């Protein structure tokens, strides 16, 4: 009897763990990302890299003239060196949020691309990991490219700064996992706008442009709950070479975000497509 190749491939996975939700197709989904990048999304992806560079040029140079140095832990550092790590962390967040919210919302509700994907022998976890994987790849590229700009400018004070690249990937992972989970529950485009509205205050108050120690106690406390603050502290600590135990705490914050995000995303996609 003739057995189609697709069937043979699917049968070979029978009995594996999680076979009903996962078929090991993350590489194929990344391949889709690359093809889409080549034929239509390149502008969006490349422009995302531009954002932190513009901020660095504008604030680092312009504000740097008004405020040449800033004191961190008793040591005074160049203003541009102070904001560069924050911009790296923020661009990791922005890329991951875009990929996992707007992008996912359109594919889910408008173009219904996931419906098509899930009619194949893939499962919902493939789709979730594939999308998040693409967000990570993008976060990784942004981090590398931005590093290639700031390191030659002397804005990375320590060799530990190299670890900022994997840290950016971790940050992107956390935001992408949670972003996708939230998006999968969203019903309208307007609800999605709410996420974007929350990003601005987070960006403005998370200590990107000056230390949060200038704030009153209650505001510092609130700011310390926000994920971007931890992202910035993590990357800044590495770039400045201020290695302390708190860095592990910041990283842990994102590990928890990843776990929670992935759990709800898979759960929700399963409910959406397998109802």
């Amino acid at each position: 009897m003739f057995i189609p190749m697709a069937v043979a491939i699917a049968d070979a996975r029978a009995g594996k763990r999680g076979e009903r939700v996962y078929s090991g197709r993350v590489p194929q989904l990344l391949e889709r990302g690359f093809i889409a990048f080549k034929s239509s999304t390149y502008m969006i992806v490349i422009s995302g890299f531009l954002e932190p560079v513009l901020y660095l040029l504008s604030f680092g140079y312009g504000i740097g003239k008004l405020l040449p140095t800033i004191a961190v832990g008793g040591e005074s550092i160049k203003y541009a060196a102070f904001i560069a790590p924050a911009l790296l962390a923020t661009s990791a967040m922005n890329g991951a949020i875009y990929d996992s919210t707007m992008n996912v919302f359109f594919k889910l509700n408008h173009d219904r691309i996931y419906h098509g994907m899930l009619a194949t022998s893939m499962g919902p976890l493939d789709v979730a990991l594939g999308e998040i994987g693409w967000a990570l790849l993008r976060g990784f590229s942004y981090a590398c490219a931005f590093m290639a700009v700031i390191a030659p400018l002397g804005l990375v004070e320590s060799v530990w700064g190299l670890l900022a690249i994997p840290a950016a990937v971790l940050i992107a992972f956390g935001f992408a996992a949670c972003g996708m989970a939230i998006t999968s529950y969203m019903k309208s485009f307007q609800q999605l706008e709410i996420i974007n509205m929350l990003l601005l205050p987070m960006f403005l108050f998370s200590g990107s442009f000056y230390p949060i120690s200038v704030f009153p106690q209650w505001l510092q406390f609130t700011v310390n709950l926000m994920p971007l603050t931890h992202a910035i502290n993590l990357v800044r600590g590495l770039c400045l070479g201020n290695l302390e135990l708190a860095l592990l705490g910041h990283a842990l914050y994102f590990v928890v975000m990843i776990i929670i995000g992935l759990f709800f995303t898979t759960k929700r996609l399963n409910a959406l497509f397998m109802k």
Partner: protein
Amino acid sequence: MSNPLISARGLTKKFGDFTAVNGIDFDVFKGESFGFLGPNGAGKSTAMRIIGATSQRTSGTISILGKDPELHGPQIRAHLGVVPQQDNLDMQLSVAENLYIYGRYFGLPRKFVKGKVDELLAFAQLEEKRDAKVETLSGGMKRRLTIARALVSEPEILMLDEPTTGLDPQARHILWDRLFRLKEQGVTLLITTHFMDEAEQLCDRLIVMDKGTIMAEGSPASLIKDYATKEVLELRFGSDRNQEMGAKLRTMCDRIEELPDRVLMYTDDGEALLEKIYAADFHPKTSLVRRSSLEDVFLRLTGRTLIE
């Protein structure tokens, strides 16, 4: 007869209090073209999604190629080609890229899929559109691309949910032609439709569904034979008079249906009946004798028209 490819018994699906599919039984055999005919909301699409292993039944049993979709979703989906009611092509990719990546989603090797893409572009008559963005295609082209995409994994069963809804007559005929070719190649077709002409054209056997249950089952010809007469005489007396005239004509044939816009008279010889009506001094504004269709079967079974 051989074992059925798909076999359902007492298949039921509830969404909260609403019962979309209510205890239906059916078998689909290899190589046949099987249809679900019914109005919108009859439960056809839900039944299709359960077969497609993307929806879990509430009760009853179903086996697809001997497997339970609840337990072996990915393996069953590897056998199926799915053409959904609403196109869900990848708008960020070109026509050829859509076919290619869909094959990859099944885990198929690159080389195999690349060969397949050329073959399917020819089948879908989209060779010239190979590098075009999906957005620029016409409705008919998008549907053909969706069908071609469903074939990339060489499925044994092709499932089409309302394949020609929203297409113009010419695009429909091109599509039907493609589906006939697939049937000739031995692909089992599963089709839902609310168009009786489509069901008559494409289906060897069909079930008529309404409100989640099966009203009748058989080939189009046998259903027409069993539930309608050979011909139908359609008369129009003007919007406000059809009801009244219908009542007067009732004695002249076996069965009569009074619809808001026209009166349908069921008979084996329409022309003869029309002469009798003129002779009795009735003067309809228009009259039409036609063959009975599945529309009439549906009307007989449910007392309602298919498209409301």
